């Protein structure tokens, strides 16, 4: 029998909620460790090994010291997986990118002298693929546990994971949810990547775009929705900045 892939899980700047989603697999973790060996997972395991095939990386990159650590992880891993919105696209950590790091630091630390202090040596938030090549993405804030399982299973089988390239609306229609626009709310479902089972609209809340904008967003559909519900383009742009700061133009303007 082929050896099980050795998997290590790492985290950078984030809330660690996506790692927690892994812990929340409950009994299914036992199935997971049948197909992979988890050799490093600081949040739940004391032992650590530097010998691994697959690195799963959660969080955004904020500092040169984080960048160095990430490069070292990349150099040891055959496959690198970005886990969750902070890693895949910067997520909410990119909201601050509308200002220069010096401004943000001044807002928060006032006039404290932090020169030469590595801990506070911060640049604009980067997603993982802005520092090292990423092989696969597990989207969402937080990730969807079923999608995590299917991606890891594919990797363990040596296959390429399959992730949706259609919008949340498709899943919403399948479940037969009432459209959030119909209820007078503003929803990013038409331009956001599916794969979450439309969880927010299903709980009667609008999609906030946490899985990223789909490439070649169906702009006609978006325009139609905006027209029908008399919504402004400004609205869609501002809502896009919660998770997709700096990424909105490419998809919406096309």
């Amino acid at each position, binding site marked *: 029998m082929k050896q099980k892939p050795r998997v290590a899980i790492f985290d950078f700047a984030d809330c*660690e*909620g996506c790692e927690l989603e892994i812990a929340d697999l409950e009994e299914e973790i036992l199935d997971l460790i049948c197909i992979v060996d988890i050799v490093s997972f600081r949040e739940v395991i*004391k032992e650590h090994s530097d010998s691994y095939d697959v690195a799963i990386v959660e969080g955004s990159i904020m500092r040169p010291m984080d960048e160095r650590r990430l490069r070292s992880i990349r150099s040891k891993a055959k496959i690198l997986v970005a886990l969750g919105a902070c890693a895949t696209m910067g997520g909410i950590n990119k909201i601050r990118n509308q200002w220069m790091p010096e401004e943000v630091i001044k807002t*928060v630390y006032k006039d404290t002298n932090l020169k030469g202090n590595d801990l506070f040596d*911060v640049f604009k938030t980067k997603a993982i693929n802005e520092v090292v090549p990423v092989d696969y993405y597990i989207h969402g804030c937080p990730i969807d546990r079923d999608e995590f399982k299917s991606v890891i299973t594919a990797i363990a089988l040596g296959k390429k994971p399959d992730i949706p390239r259609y919008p949340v609306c498709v899943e919403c229609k399948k479940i037969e949810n009432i459209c959030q626009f119909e209820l007078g709310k503003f929803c990013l479902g038409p331009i956001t990547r599916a794969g979450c089972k439309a969880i927010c609209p299903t*709980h009667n809340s609008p999609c906030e775009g946490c899985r990223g904008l789909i490439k070649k967003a169906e702009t006609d559909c978006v325009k139609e929705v905006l027209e029908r519900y008399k919504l402004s383009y400004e609205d869609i742009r501002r809502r896009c900045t919660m998770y997709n700061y700096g990424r909105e133009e490419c998809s919406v303007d096309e």
Partner: protein
Amino acid sequence: MSKDFSVHVEHVTRVEGHGNIILDVKNGKIEKLEWKVVEAPRFFEAMLHGQQYNELRSITSRICGICSIGHSLASLKATEDALEVKITEQTAMLRRLAIHAENMQSHILHIGYLVAPDLFGVGSVFPLLGTHRDAVLKIVKLHRLANEMSDLICGRTIHPIRLVIGGFSLMPTEKQLVKLKSQLEEARTLTTDIASIIHGVADILPDFTRETEYIALSSDDEYALYDGVITSTDTGKHPAYRNYQAVMKEFLVPQSSTAKYAKHARESYMVGALARFNLNNDHLHPAAKEVANMFGLKPINYNPFMNTITQLVEFFHSIEDSLYWIDLLLERGVREEKPVKVKVKAGRGVGIVEVPRGILVHDYTLNSKGYCTKANCIIPTNQNHANIQKDMEKLVPEILSRPEKEIELTLEMLVRAYDPCISCSTHYLDIAFV
């Protein structure tokens, strides 16, 4: 005895976030002893600036995955305070269930997955599957129940969806509540089993005490979690909730930490389950009091390692108190209530709740269009950092003659006992300099 050694623990394991322990001993004398928080700062204050009132909850939920229900509730309370939104009785009841669900989820994760391996001398919960499979599966079952309860009330355990300004976007049905009730009743026996297993190994917890101040919400009516008055074991009640900064005085130690520290009447204080137990134990459900007695817990207990045990006590309380609210909801009938309508206006609001790791404050100022112009959050783990440092300073001289590995493990266990949530604590919203 004179010896030279160093204990450098980089990124303490089985805690949320990145913290280091540094101990240097020369000729038997402590040269350096530091609890260092190295998590990357995340600048939430800047992130909230200019965001609309109805997006603050979604963003601040992302301060921390494990406490996201607590952050959501503190955020909603602050926004509702600023906009003078009055929630219904039913919303207040359902929010209490949400807090219990998160407390149970977080506490059992800490007890079962993060602390138990120390009590059984292993590195993680996985080896225990071989030696104590039955107990581990019981813990998994309780953890799953707490998550299912969160899913039912909040739509999702991590980053809840149904919690919105003025109420809930969707309500659980009576049928679902009846099912939850029977699951919680079933959990009683499981939890009792876990308590007796932990009791059997509890003597591994170091017998260490250091007098300090404890701060938590307290209430005349209940074991305060969702609502209450800021209370200290040193100075009593502080009812002026908007003036919370008079009690929680934060300061920065940039050379060793990207997180803020806090103090009040002394050089440090502690928040969390032990603080709540020390202040509010008379309001615990009898079933929870019984467990406290079983472990010989009496207020004021000054042993920080007992924080884990008080979490277990609170788990019992959360089961019973949840059953109380579910019964009341079923008796009244669950009403289809739309969230209370909001009128946007300028103002400042403060929301305070007890979350698994202690007292949490969100404070927002909104302009007349409902955009946030100023924000501040006081995070439980921040408030504990200084206390962890002070505990280490008293603990290390007491155990200095022991083998290095034992000293290292004891220090790690101390940090773990606080159940620190370091991602939370490096949120960096607002800094007060002292």
